[in-house]
């Protein structure tokens, strides 16, 4: 563990010293600053870190051209600026919050490109969590930390399927076609991965 040792921060982001602990905490703090005081310096830092990840997300599965990927980066980062006030670091990790915005923007972009006519935007399907008990919040945080820890221990075939469905936005049957696997195999690998990451599910 690197705790307590101050490491040089790589990339463009030289003015910022990361606090010890999880990287996401640094970005949660930046989001809070953006939301509270429209801090453009914090936003620029946030952009330099997340824009290349959002672009990689847009390009994975190669469904979007480089131009559309840049357009998606712009849309997502504008939403980050506009919605940062609603970000609650107690409830979600910054990267999860960014992921949901990127996912919604990409869904809307696909639908626009396919001239799919719907009165609903992807973010209309979002839900807000009610005010929660501190215990429940702690529980959720532990769950999300655990998922990040366990991610590295997934067998490659399960990690590959998760990347397909999450980063490329493929349905189970699209993933099955591309990997030339039976649909049942894809479904069970996704389910196994989710179990390993200890996501709690109600019995259907």
């Amino acid at each position, binding site marked *: 563990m690197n705790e307590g040792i101050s490491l040089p921060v790589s990339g463009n982001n030289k003015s910022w010293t990361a606090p010890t602990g999880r990287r996401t905490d640094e970005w949660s703090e930046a989001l809070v600053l953006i939301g509270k005081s429209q801090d453009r310096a914090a936003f620029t830092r946030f952009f330099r870190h997340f824009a290349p990840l959002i*672009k990689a997300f847009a390009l994975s599965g190669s469904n979007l051209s480089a131009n559309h990927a840049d357009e998606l980066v712009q849309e997502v980062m504008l939403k980050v600026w506009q919605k940062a006030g609603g970000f609650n670091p107690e409830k979600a990790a910054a990267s999860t919050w960014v992921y949901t915005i990127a996912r919604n923007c990409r869904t809307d972009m696909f639908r626009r490109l396919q001239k799919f006519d719907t009165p609903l935007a992807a973010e209309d399907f979002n839900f807000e*969590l009610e005010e929660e008990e501190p215990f429940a919040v702690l529980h959720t945080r532990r769950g999300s930390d655990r998922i990040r820890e366990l991610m590295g221990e997934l067998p490659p075939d399960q990690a590959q399927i998760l990347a397909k469905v999450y980063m490329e936005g493929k349905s189970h049957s699209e993933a099955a076609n591309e990997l030339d696997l039976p649909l049942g195999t894809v479904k069970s690998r996704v*389910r196994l991965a989710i179990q390993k990451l200890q996501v709690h599910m109600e019995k259907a």
Partner: protein
Amino acid sequence: MVNHHPTADFLTDYATGAMPPAQAACISGHVNYCEQCRRSIEQLQDIGGALLERLPPAAVSESVLDNVLARLDEPAPLSFDTSKRGLTDTAIPGLLQRLINGDFSELVWRKITGSLSVSYLKTGDEHHEFALYRIAAGGQIPEHDHEGSEMTLVLQGGFSDESGHYGPGDFVYRKPSETHAPTAIQSEECICLAVMDAPLRFTRWQHRWLNPFLQLRAG
């Protein structure tokens, strides 16, 4: 108390954005009633966040940052307020409220049988019909099956069929060709949201003559 939940497969499709809009609206409706599934979806979204952190970054040119910085002062677009969603048994989930644009009574209801009527809503989903079904208190939907699949979410009242009892917030999924004959509870009329990818088919001879009129109204 919600007792019937969507499967892990459905929640994953919802969390990854792979679900068609009509079905996603149905899951989103269930989630309004169900704290446990909300938590599951949050954790499933955490997987997305964790995977995003691990992607190899793709170079973004400075001009993209300049463009965004130049646009920060634009007014934010108006968006539907998702924060006022109650968790009471009678509240209509927020997204549905918007599609209904009023109260159940303001919708156009078409009668199918004496105790069953239907109202079609628009989601823009070309492959799924998105409709509300209203069953009179104690009324029965004649036995039917489906050529396709059906997601059902109970919004008001409740019904029972061969496999159990379902109340507000409960989610039921029927695969193609599963037969059932739901009966509404005696005390109250039952309103359900049903999302189908093929029309239902009545299976008993008394009602089969209705089948030609039951075409899928997707869109």
